């Protein structure tokens, strides 16, 4: 069962995904053997800093990685039991926007500037449903209302919308065909804090209404805490620690996860300076032999430099690559 089909109640199962980019002759190891599961109706938070490979994982699921510069080297991605990596492009097109949708990071550029927002929602509706123009138009206007925009603004263009409104439109496009899986790639990073909360609440509400599962990509620990059932901490294209939200927040075990929490300001304590994780993300073109986090790790031992550590189950459902604090 481990390598085979999706287990009961599982919507998405990624096995040993390896993705590489090539740039100017160099190979960038973006995702290095990621495995994760997303249960139906749940939200999995993919937590990691910029360049950790979070977006690449989501794009691999949708199979919208840039064709010429990227390559999925190995791995399986099961969506409802079917490996999407083996599907033909035509079959994949029927999945995109229908059973799996994606929300992008930057709403300012995610909409086509020369098409009316209504048209852009209609497009996805007409691609996946056998509806006439009028019906699709009506449907698109309902979607706008659903995301809190007046239906008569369907005739306007993206430049007439604010950033938060544009993200609502992007969400309307993503949810128009009632997908089972929503890949939300930092949906609120480009928005200011008050709008962030609104958008997150709305996503949460619609997720429940449509009974979707969500892979929420973020670098914001607060967003993870408020939205996610499960969390996977990713670093240099590999998952360091995964478990339920409680596992990660109450018992952070990997030195990296602990470092992330230490870098958060605590409202109850008077702290003059925060404790950052020292150093920088390792160069993805030149990965070390041993643990990827070891160059920045305060607890690194000699053996960490040479030995790769596998994920170990430290308590039921809570996996971690490092056993130092286990």
């Amino acid at each position, binding site marked *: 069962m481990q390598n085979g089909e999706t287990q009961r109640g599982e919507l998405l199962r990624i096995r040993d995904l390896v993705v590489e980019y090539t740039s100017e002759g160099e190979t960038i190891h973006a995702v290095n053997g990621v495995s994760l599961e997303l249960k139906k109706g749940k939200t999995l938070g993919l937590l990691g800093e910029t360049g950790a490979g979070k977006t690449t994982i989501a794009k691999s699921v949708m199979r919208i990685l840039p064709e010429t510069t990227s390559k999925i080297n190995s791995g399986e991605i099961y969506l409802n039991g079917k490996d999407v990596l083996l599907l033909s492009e035509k079959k994949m097109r029927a999945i995109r*926007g229908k059973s799996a949708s994606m929300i992008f990071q930057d709403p300012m*550029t*995610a909409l086509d500037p020369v098409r009316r927002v209504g048209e852009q929602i209609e497009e996805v509706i007409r691609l996946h449903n056998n509806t006439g123009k009028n019906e699709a138009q009506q449907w698109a206007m309902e979607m706008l209302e659903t995301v809190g925009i007046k239906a008569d603004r369907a005739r306007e263009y993206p430049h007439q919308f604010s950033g938060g409104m544009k993200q609502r439109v992007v969400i309307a496009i993503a949810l128009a065909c009632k997908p089972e899986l929503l890949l939300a790639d930092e949906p609120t990073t480009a928005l200011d804090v008050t709008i962030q909360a609104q958008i997150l609440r709305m996503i949460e509400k619609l997720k429940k209404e449509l009974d979707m599962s969500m892979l929420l990509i973020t670098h914001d620990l607060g967003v993870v805490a408020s939205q996610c059932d499960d969390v996977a901490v990713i670093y240099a294209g590999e998952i360091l620690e995964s478990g339920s939200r409680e596992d990660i927040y109450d018992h952070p075990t990997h030195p990296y996860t602990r470092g992330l929490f230490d870098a958060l300001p605590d409202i109850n304590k008077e702290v003059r300076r925060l404790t950052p994780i020292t150093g920088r993300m390792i160069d993805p073109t030149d990965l070390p032999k041993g643990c990827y986090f070891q160059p920045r790790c305060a607890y690194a031992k000699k053996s960490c430099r040479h030995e790769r550590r596998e994920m170990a189950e430290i308590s039921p459902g809570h996996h971690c690559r490092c056993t130092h604090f286990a």
Partner: protein
Amino acid sequence: MARYIVKRLLWMIPLIICVAITIFTLMYFVPGDPAKIMAGTDASQADVELVREELGLNDPYIVRLGHYLSDVFLHFDFGKSLINRSSIGDALIERFPRSMTLALSSLLITLLVGIPLGIIAAVNPNTWKDRASMFFSLIAVSIPPFWFALMLVVIFALNLNLLPSMWYGGASGIKYWILPVVANSVIGVAMQARQTRSSMLEAMNADYILTSRAKGLSERGIIFRHALPNASIPIITESFFTVSASIAGSLIIENVFGIPGIGVYLVTALNTRDFTVVQSTVIFVAIILSLLNLITDIGYAAVDPRIKAGFAETGKGKRKLKKERGVAL
């Protein structure tokens, strides 16, 4: 939008007057005596004086300029040729459709050939398709048009005897246009292909293309529904160059194929020092180019709602727009 167009048309008036003053002044200082030209080479000094008086050439510069401007702009009279006394206005009206036919047919070819070439190159970057298309463009842009025109004549008119080699009196029908239009389009096709390629490459890398792909849209749909409309501003600009170059500057093609168009008219007038023809033709071409420029700008607005909004948001329109939208902006 209508307000904008009217405003632009009104702006053309001072612009064309400036062009008229400039070309008149330039021609005033150009060496050569129109009176001598008109009177002929073997005319006596007295005859020349007579002609000079008749044409008002003895008047001071400012008076002559005033007469000329009032003729052109108040009486819509472009004057008469110094050489054969024929009406310049009639000549322009007779010749302009030929130049325009050449220009618009060339535009059609550059759009029909150049844009697909550019798209093929852009959606298959760094493949043999891209390289072949760009190699073709490089060759096409490097060929001197007159040489290419002559080669076409040699092959299709002289050797294969398929098409007429040039115009003659009473020539009509599409076959007389094929060789000139092809010869006139080559550089335009190459430029259009390169322009389309670079703007399509940029558009294909945009985030909204990724959004469309994530919607499940096919590659074809992505290219034609999202990438091409977004890449079309530079394509419109390039089209403007193609048409304007054909109208004002296709004298080589007009000469090779003997098409009596505007280009030939202007160059012949320059060679014979036919001052009035040169002045009036330049003004006429300036008017046509201003109109083309306006059409180009309207074209921009047609493909990009942001530009259209910019046109609308002037004066009254802007206030109304703000009021309608309230604070939502």
